[in-house]
């Protein structure tokens, strides 16, 4: 059922902020390239603050105007030109990403500072430039209203994410990075193929115009299938998940946080955007069920394999594989509600909450694992004793992040699962409830194991291998608290996700 989206295509008063949200991080990359070394790090911190301010300003503009924030680039309206649009969903993601990147930036200051006496070092410079590039690409994914611009955004995201995997330079990470790149390129080319078919059939690449013109026919089904499979490969949904665990586990801790927490969300958001907006009248409930079935498989496989891991970073990476499965449970729930002509906002809210609570929690957990590695010199789960004594704040942060993944109140994960479960019951799709319960149980098993091992007292006379700066632990705890307290969003007075997405049930839709 096509949602009636905001039909005005005129630049909003504060629309320029959308352009800034996209271009300011890239200006930072360009400036950082020239300034080099420590200059790049300083530029990055300036951009971290500026970008967060821009995201808050966009959120403010959205809530004040009560409608989508639009910007028509160059004054050329679609279909000839390109428009940037930020509705409630996009703004939520913009804000969440800005906060998480801020936390990662603060944390990474210790790991990726240019060593004294050296004018410029490879890994530090590259990290800051790639961090900004990931941010700009993600913002572009969230606000772009044109399918080809979104393709370029996906490529930007890939080129920024792949070098993060091999940032450490070890041979195994090179192999993981190459595998990731091949999967990602495969995904983008399938996505482009779908977009090309849509242009051939409907003569436009603009999301709003396509939403109005699209109707169910073979070309559209083929395009939807191709684009979805392509985005699934980039989001590492089972069974296309094989590239993710070695890639995310092998990267340096801050880079893993970016990859698991943020980069994955880009292609997922695009899939949501396509299914909710462009293909709303085309996708059927059975196809959405198939997508969620893959998600359920991901939850089971990911959690079970995570339980068997010996190393902490690999455990967290497999946990990501499982959590990605949750992100796709919202698809049949949103479609099911639409079929029953009930407002599907609850399911969409659940999916969004799941995404940002995972982003914050997973970033915190990977960064915590990095601190544990620095302190112990290894990350073997069996030998984690002493961590509670040496890094109490970090262990609490890990536990809070884990609680959000399990779905304990008042975390964002709890609220997300609550919303999804209630929708599942309303639409009589109770089997997803079972999947979420089992997933929660399995997740709690390995979080429990890690925390218990870490709380064991250290052996006699053990001292930490290295001291980690206080602010790193604070950054990790701050992000974990964000995830843990996200459930309070239930008390938010404004239903942000709904802005710009007025639902008009169509009578007689089969």
């Amino acid at each position, binding site marked *: 059922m096509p949602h009636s989206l905001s039909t005005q295509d005129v630049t909003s008063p504060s629309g320029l902020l959308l352009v800034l949200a996209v271009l300011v991080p890239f200006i930072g990359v360009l400036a950082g390239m020239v300034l080099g070394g420590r200059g790049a790090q300083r530029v990055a911190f300036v951009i971290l603050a500026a970008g967060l301010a821009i995201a808050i300003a966009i959120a403010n503009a959205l809530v004040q105007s009560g409608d989508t924030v639009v910007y028509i680039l160059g004054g050329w309206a679609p279909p000839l030109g390109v428009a940037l649009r930020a509705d409630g969903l996009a703004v939520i993601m913009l804000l969440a990403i800005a906060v998480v990147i801020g936390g990662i930036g603060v944390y990474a200051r210790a790991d990726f500072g240019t060593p004294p006496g050296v004018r410029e070092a490879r890994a530090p410079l590259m990290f800051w430039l790639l961090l900004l590039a990931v941010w700009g690409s993600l913002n572009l994914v969230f606000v772009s209203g044109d399918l080809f611009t979104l393709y*370029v955004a996906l490529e930007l995201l890939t080129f920024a994410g792949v070098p993060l995997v091999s940032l450490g330079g070890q041979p195994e990470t090179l192999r993981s990075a190459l595998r990731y790149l091949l999967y990602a*390129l495969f995904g983008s080319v399938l996505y*482009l193929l779908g977009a090309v078919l849509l242009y051939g059939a409907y003569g436009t690449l603009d999301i709003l115009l396509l939403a109005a013109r699209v109707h169910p026919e073979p070309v559209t089904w083929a395009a939807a299938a191709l684009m979805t499979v392509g985005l699934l490969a980039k989001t590492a949904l089972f069974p296309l998940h094989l590239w993710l665990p070695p890639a995310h586990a092998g990267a340096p801790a801050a880079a893993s946080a970016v990859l698991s927490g943020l980069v994955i969300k880009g292609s997922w958001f695009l899939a949501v955007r396509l299914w909710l907006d462009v293909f709303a009248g085309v996708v059927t409930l059975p196809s959405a069920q198939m997508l969620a079935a893959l998600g359920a498989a991901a939850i089971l496989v990911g959690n079970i394999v995570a339980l068997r891991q010996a190393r902490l970073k690999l455990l967290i990476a497999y946990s990501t594989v499982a959590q990605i499965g949750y992100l796709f449970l919202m698809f049949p729930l949103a479609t099911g509600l639409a079929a029953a002509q009930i407002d599907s906002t609850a399911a969409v809210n659940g999916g969004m909450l799941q995404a940002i609570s995972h982003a914050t929690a997973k970033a915190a957990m990977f960064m915590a694992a990095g601190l544990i590695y620095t302190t112990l010199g290894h990350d073997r789960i069996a030998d984690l004793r002493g961590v509670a004594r040496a890094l109490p704040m970090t262990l609490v942060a890990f536990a809070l992040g884990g609680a959000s993944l399990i779905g304990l109140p008042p975390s964002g994960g709890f609220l997300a699962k609550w919303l999804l479960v209630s929708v599942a019951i309303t639409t009589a799709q109770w089997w997803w409830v079972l999947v979420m319960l089992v997933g929660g149980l399995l997740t709690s098993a390995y979080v429990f194991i890690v925390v218990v091992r870490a709380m064991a007292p250290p052996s006699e006379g053990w001292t930490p291998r290295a001291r980690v700066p206080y602010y790193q632990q604070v950054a990790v705890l701050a992000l974990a608290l964000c995830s843990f307290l996200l459930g309070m969003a239930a008390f938010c007075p404004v239903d942000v996700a709904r802005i710009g997405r007025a639902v008009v049930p169509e009578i007689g839709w089969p």
Partner: protein
Amino acid sequence: MNAPTLFGLCAAALVGVGLYGLIVNPQPLRKILAFNLIGCGVFLLFGAIARRGAAVGMGGDPVPQALLITGIVVAFSATALAVALVLRLFDETGSVTLASDAPAKAQADPPDA
């Protein structure tokens, strides 16, 4: 059967051939070649669509043609990044296998094939 339809079907076949090569060939450089084949297939399809959009005295729809130029450049840069990764992997380990259980250290060169 006019030119755009013919080349559109050709594009479909190219995508299939490239897909087969991507899955089957274990050598990363061959996978990169296969990916380029798929990409060219997609571009060819877009070009056929552009030709079908000929109107007002022009030979083709200029919007897809412009986007194709962008696409070709992006595909080249993707190939460059992938090739750089393969070469670096070779420099570090002496082999370019993508299997996860490969040795991590460089070995003595195998005898020339």
